[in-house]
């Protein structure tokens, strides 16, 4: 394991630590240790990537932080507060939002409703169970539809969405919660190169105060967006550092990156392009009229 100095190894007496896990362990039935004695910190406002081979415990880590799973032992601190025993609904209301590896949506409700319900517990509009107030909430959520690029699908039942569209809806739902911490589980999976660029745009547009923790396999994406990279393997920490440091790390290359991906990132990411190259008005869809009312993958 390489010792790489980075902000994340500084003891968390720093007041700008947003998430801290201490001695965090999660064992599944049969004794498999998904996560074993992890000590990690994620600085506020940072863009943190978590990478590692499949089965390294990345998604389990996100599940522990968001509260989907209770830890076997250890502690989780959010903004200085011990949330280990707090339910996921409460953690969500405290400002932690996430997306899922297999996006789950409320299939019989429309896409617009999915976003509105995701925003619901976090908006201060009172009495949202009333139709008029709910409509106000829905209207306020339209911008999230645009950011996720699914405005055209607003009235579609969410269950009828293609896999990739459902992924974007999942992201839209997380953003709609206006979170302080955003946990993203492989958001770029299945996206085309242009899709990844659009995702990067959306992430760059996030307020700087929002702390982002991204689990991802696309190392070009990671290099483009992350301040710090944490590498997990078999439930423990393998390395941590900046993207460049990690790409150069021999242990990481052997266990996870392989030579091709590491090489690609060494020569600079193709995705580090100027913002002005892109039309950031996500509402306009040039040339999308193909003459059919519905299309699905």
């Amino acid at each position, binding site marked *: 394991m390489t010792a790489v100095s980075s902000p994340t190894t500084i003891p968390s007496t720093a007041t700008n630590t947003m998430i801290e896990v201490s001695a965090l362990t999660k064992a599944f039935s049969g004794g498999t240790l998904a996560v074993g004695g992890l000590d990690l910190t994620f600085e506020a406002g940072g863009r943190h990537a978590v990478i590692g081979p499949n089965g390294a415990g990345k998604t389990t880590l996100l599940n522990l932080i968001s509260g989907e799973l209770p830890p076997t032992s250890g502690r989780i601190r959010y903004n200085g507060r011990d949330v280990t025993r707090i339910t996921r609904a409460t953690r969500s209301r405290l400002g932690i939002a996430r997306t899922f*590896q*297999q996006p789950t949506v409320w299939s019989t409700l429309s896409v617009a409703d999915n976003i509105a319900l995701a925003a619901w517990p976090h908006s201060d509009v009172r009495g949202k169970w009333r139709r008029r107030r709910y409509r106000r909430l829905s209207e306020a959520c339209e911008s999230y539809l645009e950011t996720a690029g699914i405005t*055209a*699908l607003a009235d579609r039942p969410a269950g009828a969405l293609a*896999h990739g*569209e459902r992924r974007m809806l999942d992201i839209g739902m997380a953003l709609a919660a206006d979170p302080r911490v955003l946990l993203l589980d492989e958001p770029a999976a299945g996206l085309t*190169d242009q899709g990844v660029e659009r995702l990067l745009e959306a992430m760059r547009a996030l307020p700087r105060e929002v702390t982002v923790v991204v689990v991802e396999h696309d190392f070009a994406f990671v290099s483009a967006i992350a301040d710090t990279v944490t590498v997990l393997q078999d439930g423990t920490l393998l390395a941590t550092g900046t993207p460049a440091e990690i790409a150069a790390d021999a242990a990481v290359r052997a266990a996870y990156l392989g030579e091709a991906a590491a090489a690609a990132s060494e020569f600079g990411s193709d995705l580090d392009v100027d913002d002005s190259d892109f039309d950031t008005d996500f509402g306009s869809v040039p040339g*999308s009229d193909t003459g*059919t009312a519905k299309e*699905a993958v």
Partner: protein
Amino acid sequence: MLNLSSLSAGYDGGTVLHGLDLEIPEGSVHAVVGHNGAGKTTLIHSVSGLVPTSSGQVVLAGADVTRLPAHRRARSGVGLVPQGRRVFPGLTVQEHLMLAFGRRTRRERATAQWTPENVKALLPRLAERAGHRGRQLSGGEQQMLAIARALLGQPRLLLLDEPTEGLAPLIVQDIANLIRTLPDRGLTILVAAPRPAFAAEVAERVTILVAGRIADEFSAKELHDQPDLAAEAMGHATGERLAS
């Protein structure tokens, strides 16, 4: 091996694919690349029979299978590795393999090209995990299991829908290598993928799909020499159902 002529297909109330013509010679690897909503999965499902064809033909090894239901097509040699892997969480790896293989008659089993043993020989990681349940496998292992399961159906044409989604770069390499070796075992392959780079790595020819129509087709070499060709063909997100 596979011949699609003027294929149109879609779900109730909407057409996704419009008059596709595609030809895949036996023993080759062919990739389809496009955005979400462009029709990659619909194309794969039209070939496997899960999506009905509204017009056009699907011809498999010279036989018109357009009206054949999915399970018959599977018997005729169409194997599907679906998007998202669809592994049974409660069954062990071995049980998955036995389930996929065991429904054949004794004689079929004796003469089968793919058996649980040689599939495990092909995928040693899977062999190590034979007793693990589906939910205990990592993403890459699940993907390998899904491929193994499809192979045990003794396919002649193997369809893979985004087989490397969500997999670590190292595993992506393993899967790519695996796909490249399958034609040596007599298989024809059709892969759907979002990234032209991966497609060019595994396939000999790459078709670009935009809004349910074929925008262009390139050889892997062409894409290798000029990586921007595919991006241009896909356009700056034109035609896709998602906004900009």
